[in-house]
């Protein structure tokens, strides 16, 4: 029955809530737009990011369809990174990857806030790519904005 507990961990109330009512859902104009997908699953995400002059994240919204994990992860992410400096967002990305894969050490757990709840993904290695879907799109958006400037 251990796996059922793990499952409960994976789909905690907060996570289901985010997946059903994702925050920062929608689109932005005049922004960097990245489309990300998970070919194996068919999950898709559109990430819209506005950067400020220093490369920090001024505004962010997302759109698309996917499983509870990918939706909740993206929703929680947008809350946390909105208004962040570039290096801060990068650090969170790195830390979050450690949280879901269980590899490497987390530098600043506090910064992740409730994103820590996605730790349950560790027990479901197939879902790591779901949890990372939004983050990978953000990473790409940051790379593109860096190239432009």
């Amino acid at each position, binding site marked *: 029955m251990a796996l059922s507990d793990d*499952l409960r961990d994976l789909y905690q109330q907060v996570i*289901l809530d985010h997946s059903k009512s994702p925050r920062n859902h929608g689109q932005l104009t005049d922004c960097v737009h990245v489309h990300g997908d998970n070919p194996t699953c068919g999950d898709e995400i559109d990430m819209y990011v506005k950067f400020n002059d220093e490369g920090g994240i001024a505004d962010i919204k997302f759109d698309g369809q996917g*499983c*509870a*994990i990918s939706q909740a992860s993206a929703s929680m992410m947008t809350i946390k990174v909105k208004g962040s400096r570039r290096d801060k967002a990068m650090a969170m990305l790195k830390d979050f990857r450690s949280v879901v894969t269980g590899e490497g050490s987390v530098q600043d757990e506090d910064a992740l806030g409730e994103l820590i709840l996605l730790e349950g993904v560790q027990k479901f290695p197939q879902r790591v790519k779901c949890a990372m879907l939004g983050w990978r799109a953000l990473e790409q958006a940051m790379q593109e904005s860096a190239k432009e400037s």
Partner: protein
Amino acid sequence: MTDLSHLRVDFPILHQQVHGEPLVYFDNAASSQKPRQVIAELTRYYELDNANVHRGLYELSNRATDSFEAARKKVACFIGAGSADEVIFTRGTTESINLVAQVWAAQFLKAGDVILYTGMEHHSNLVPWQLAARRTGAVLKHIPVLDDGTLDLTLLDLLLTEQAKLFACVHVSNSLGTINPVRELCAKARALGVTTLIDGAQAAGHLPVNVRDIGCDFYAFSGHKMCAPTGIGVLYGKAEVLAKMEPWHGGGEMIESVTLEASTYKAAPHRFEAGTPDIAGVIGLGAAIDYLESVGIEKIHQHGQELTAYAMQCLAELPGIRLLGPQGDRASLAAFALACAHPHDLVEFANTHGLALRGGHHCTQPLMKRFKVPGTSRASFYFYNTAAEVDRMMDILHRAVTFFS
């Protein structure tokens, strides 16, 4: 309901616990399980007869060659081919289709010719034609799918014309369960001189298949979906059509004579089987056919229809469910979307209770777009599945609805 549960003893894999609960394997459309008779035949072959085929003059090689060619005859019989020479061994449906999309298409398609397929094709019957179209300049068209999961045949006269040089169509849809009227479609195509390829991945071993009755030029299927080992499949090709085709791969077994500059080639089927074949796989496929025939394909089909009808009826009662595919005559699978849970979440939940479902696009992305779903959950059955297993599935799905709501 037709009960074939006495055959479960033949399938060692079914008798295991997964996460503390009995395994319910409902992903048969992706791959079937193997009876001990087939596993034993592989072992027997490797422990007694293993040797390369066709080129040896010693006992083991003779035995291996005899079993190998006997399996070809069994396949020919099984699908009603005119002769064993019409049976080409491949890795599976995908390779079979690619063979045609490379060799036949390169010879017989030119810019502007139409390749017609349908909106419910598996990626394996779409992408090879897209690649062929890019190489030849042929144009791609498709027969759309109606809301009830059948083909929109009102458009047939418009689409299936003499301009169409090739018509590729799935026999049984792996995402909808639709059984297409391939016999009628091939008759119409033949009258217009259009070459036909039927993707039988979900049909062979599930319902009676007779390629001469269907009247197709090519028929492709996979062994692993019909109790045979992984890595073996078949391309049936009508003798007249194969006779006109250039070789595909070059190498041992397919040549007549070779110099350092040029070569001449054998006739079909060996022309298309370069290199050492999957000997054990072929012999295993023969054993699988023996097994299926001992059960009876008609009985397997009937069982599948009854079990699916029962599952569809149970599923319909789930709150927030949307069932895809036709209501009446259909193949043994049920695909659905639940309002409360994305397929991946549902399948993950099911797995924690030992239930193997598949969630996703099922290699039919265009069809998912057509039905405006990100993917579906799918339960697909084979003759060793039971109504009791469907009941267990329903119990687990009800719990999932509670969990995710």
